[in-house]
């Protein structure tokens, strides 16, 4: 953390109780964890399914082991194969990343039972937060505000009675769920029966647990979450909020910190509530308490706690100066957090854009391909967290997240400007992606004004279409067909247009 420069943490860092970390994940987060390991002097071991042979995360780790076929159930979700890879590689700790087994308490317990350090919260805390019904009850007990709702008896009759009390619109949610699966919005009483039936079916199929809860539905709410960090000695801190209201298909697209809507008072209140939520379940390591914020009433409500590192953690890293993944490893090693809440500050403004291999003009349909050409933007306040490099094939077997682009600047306006320039200078050719969509999204006046809600993208960008074709692009395509590899150069890129320049120039960018 910046303000502690004089303490020089790294110099006084005690030797870690492990020297090798197995990364039970893939893509950009596996690359991210490998980098943190290397920066801490730890050896990293990647695992990969056959579909990911040669993927970037296997190249940046010190060792890579195959763990099975492309189906996640037989590789990235297969506890036994991952533990076997940990044994074979001599790993002393396991970092789960996000997704896959990251919130699976059985996996955490199996890791610990194998004598390995689990880089994450205690399994009991994961279990407590994983059960949405139980978590709601715990939060009410801990004084953390929750949405009006109902958990417990979930017969159709009981739910109907509770629904009448809560009022409409409301949300039917899987008690064991998360990530929007087994979830239905119910606008009026007449839709309730069908919603209960279909949500229960989906919950059973997805989580093997058909239990349901009810929550009041806030149609234009903002998604504001708080990053927490706890060490294994009982100290909890919050690292301020992230606003994640720009979503499509209930998945985040753009995140930022600070939230444009919080003031100091509300920020402190939400931070305190998040720490209380973490303390209530005996949390440790990095976690995120998600809240829904009603912009009218300015009231916030506990949504769920993600008991792992999140995709959008870089925006918090940029504004706090703390390396969250390094701290995950150091906390797992038993280190104490050497700073206090009052030492932490949000400095400047950070925005993250998720670059997905998907088609925003066709319902965000994910797709694969090959990154035939890839040039990242550069310069001050620009950060890239990528799971691919130029030349890499992109499998469509997994999550379509390719990379994250993060811009940091003194204020929100400058960060948006920086992000706009960075997106426009990102060259990614060979597959369908959402970079043009992100540019149009960030240029929307409501986004510039910070007036966001979780329905905004689907409401305003349902009919988004790719840009009109400029004549210069057509000419560049045709000229490219005529271009030859320079005779004296064997290995140069035959598609580079930079060998010479004449008078005609492309219109402004």
């Amino acid at each position, binding site marked *: 953390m910046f303000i502690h420069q004089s303490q020089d943490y790294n110099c006084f860092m005690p030797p870690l109780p492990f020297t090798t970390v197995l990364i039970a994940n893939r893509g950009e987060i596996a690359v991210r964890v490998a980098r943190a390991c290397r920066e801490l002097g730890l050896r990293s071991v990647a695992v990969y399914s056959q579909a990911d042979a040669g993927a970037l995360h296997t190249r940046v780790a010190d060792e890579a082991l195959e763990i099975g076929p*492309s*189906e996640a159930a037989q590789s990235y979700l297969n506890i036994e194969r991952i533990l076997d890879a940990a044994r074979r590689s001599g790993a002393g700790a396991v970092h789960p990343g996000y997704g896959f087994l990251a919130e699976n308490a059985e996996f955490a317990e199996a890791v610990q039972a194998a004598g390995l350090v689990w880089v994450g919260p205690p399994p009991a805390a994961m279990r407590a937060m994983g059960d949405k019904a139980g978590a709601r009850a715990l939060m009410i007990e801990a004084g953390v505000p929750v949405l009006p709702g109902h958990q417990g008896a979930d017969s159709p009759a009981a739910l109907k009675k509770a629904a009448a009390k809560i009022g409409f619109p409301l949300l039917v949610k899987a008690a064991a769920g998360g*990530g929007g*699966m087994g979830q239905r919005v119910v606008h009026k009483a007449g839709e309730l029966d069908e919603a209960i039936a279909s949500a229960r079916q989906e919950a059973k199929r997805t989580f093997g647990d058909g239990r349901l809860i009810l929550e009041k539905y806030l149609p234009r709410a903002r998604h504001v979450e708080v990053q927490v960090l706890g060490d294994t000695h009982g100290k909890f801190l919050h690292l301020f909020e992230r606003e994640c209201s720009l979503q499509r298909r209930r*998945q985040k697209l753009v995140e930022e910190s600070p939230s444009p809507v919080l003031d100091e008072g509300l920020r402190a209140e939400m931070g305190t509530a998040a720490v209380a939520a973490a303390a209530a379940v005996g949390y440790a390591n990095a976690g995120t308490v998600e809240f829904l914020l009603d912009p009218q009433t300015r009231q916030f409500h506990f949504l769920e706690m993600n008991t792992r590192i999140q995709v959008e953690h870089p925006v918090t890293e940029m504004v706090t100066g703390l390396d969250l993944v390094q701290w995950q490893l150091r906390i797992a090693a038993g280190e104490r957090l050497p700073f206090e809440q009052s030492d932490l500050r949000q400095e400047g403004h950070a925005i993250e854009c998720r670059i997905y291999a998907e088609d925003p003009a*066709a*319902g*965000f*349909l*994910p*797709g*694969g*391909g090959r990154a*035939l*050409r890839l*040039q990242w933007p550069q310069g001050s306040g620009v950060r890239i967290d990528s799971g691919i490099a130029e030349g890499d094939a992109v499998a*469509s*077997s997994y*999550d*379509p997240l390719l990379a994250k682009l993060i811009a940091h600047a003194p204020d929100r306006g400058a960060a948006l400007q920086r992000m706009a320039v960075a997106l*426009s200078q990102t*060259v*990614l*050719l*060979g597959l*369908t*992606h959402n970079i*043009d969509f992100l*540019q149009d999204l960030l240029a929307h006046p409501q986004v510039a004004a910070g007036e966001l809600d979780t329905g905004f993208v689907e409401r305003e960008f349902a009919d988004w*279409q*790719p840009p009109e*074709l*400029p*004549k*210069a*692009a*057509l*000419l*560049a*395509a*045709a*000229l*490219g*067909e*005529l*271009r030859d590899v320079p005779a004296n150069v064997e290995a140069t890129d035959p*598609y*580079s*247009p*930079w*060998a*010479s*320049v*004449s008078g*005609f*120039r*492309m*219109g*402004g*960018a």
Partner: protein
Amino acid sequence: MKFAYQYRGQLYEVELIPTEGGYVASVDGRRLGQVGPTSLDAPTAREGRQVWIHAAGRTFALQRAVGSRSGASAASGEQTLRAPMPGQVRSVFVRAGQQVAAGQVLLTLEAMKMEIRIQAPGDGKVARLAVAQGDSVEREQILVELESETS
């Protein structure tokens, strides 16, 4: 030299007439001016019929419409719709023999927390429906075969 490209359903024709030190360029018959052989600072990439261009801060995916150097294999699959990723068939909206219009949603898949809509690439008739609701499918598994109107 003439080149034809498709972009968002529209056909564009580019003509380059060699001159001293470059080409005179026309698009759809309208003369634009003189260009050098490598004068447009636009990164490009090609794969099969597909041509990608990064221009004016945006990405354009064109398809070669004539003069394609390796378009054969890409064309052969046009009427076979395959699963873009492993998943489960959530809903099927058509039956074998049914007439469908370009853009019509034929079925949906559920994969990685997403609903994937499989749409008809052109007007035609469902020649074969290879999956049913609830089926698990592998990546590249055939879902539907279409008979195009014009074939």
